[in-house]
């Protein structure tokens, strides 16, 4: 449906206009503008998800929920893989991330790829926040259009 297309076009325009590199200090939580936008949207989206999903028992359930339900709701597909060290670090793998798919797959685009992941990192972080977890989310791309999101749950 065309709605998704509008979001993708808006996202691309936002990356073009708003992306700026952010120096991260050790423990600092400064989010780039794009991550901040994603965070707000992630928070709001998580609030709209079906009520029964909000009664989680474990951290792992929350991550599974993000990989299945949230990803399907937002990107119309499930995350392709989830790994964890069972100590608060999770790696979410998407073999064909929709916001990267329109980019060419040559190595020259690899440099640009992180810009297209910033919003979504914020989205995950914001959704986790609504679900009761503080986190740090980063992303990396090895081969377009596959990418990995690393989620580190902060212990309070």
């Amino acid at each position, binding site marked *: 449906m*065309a*709605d998704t297309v509008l979001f993708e*076009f808006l996202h691309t325009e936002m990356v073009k206009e708003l992306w700026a590199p952010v120096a991260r200090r050790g423990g600092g939580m400064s989010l780039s503008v794009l991550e901040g936008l994603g965070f707000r949207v992630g928070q709001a989206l998580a609030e709209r998800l079906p009520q029964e999903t909000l009664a989680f028992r474990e951290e792992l359930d929350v991550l599974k929920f993000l990989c299945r*339900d949230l990803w399907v709701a*937002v990107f119309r597909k499930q995350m392709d893989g989830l790994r964890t060290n069972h100590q608060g670090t999770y790696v979410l793998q998407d073999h064909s991330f929709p916001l990267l798919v329109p980019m060419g797959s040559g190595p020259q685009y690899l440099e640009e790829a992180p810009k297209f992941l910033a919003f979504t990192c914020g989205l995950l972080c914001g959704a986790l926040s609504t679900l009761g977890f503080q986190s740090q989310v980063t992303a990396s791309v090895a081969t377009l259009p596959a990418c990995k999101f690393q989620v580190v749950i902060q212990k309070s």
Partner: protein
Amino acid sequence: MSRPAHRRPEYHKINKDLFVLTYGALVAQLCKDYEKDEDVNKYLDKMGYGIGTRLVEDFLARSCVRRCHSYSEIVDIIAQVAFKMYLGITPSVTCNNSSRNEFSLILDKNPLAEFVEALPAGRSSLCYCNLVCGIIRGALEMVNLAADVTFLQDRLKGDSVTEIGITFLKKLDEKKCRRKK
């Protein structure tokens, strides 16, 4: 689970909300970055223009619009096909002058402003949906039709409807028919 996740109606709504919420966050961010309403409006228009220049290709690929022979046909297509396709609404169209190059799209409902009750305090000149004007302008320009597109009325500013004015700047050469958004 009895139904596959992506068919649940809540998820469809969330997908629609994604664009509206992202747009809202963007406007809020621009209001932080720019003090003057005119600057936010201009920026939204500029971003919309960038989107429009690319969206028009997507539109033409998805729709089977025939060649247009008049500005009013073009505006009808914008209202009945493009708006319907991307925003799920069909604004009504009026022609505002006898030389038939000034038109209005009247929006009864504005999906972009679905979660907005009122403009933020101190932002009374903000054209919240100015992105849309830019999109229309950019799309038209990609098919060689220069136009001015602005909000003439805005429900968020207290008007009874939301009205987008489109003024074509050149006389359309009757012999040169162009496929249009």
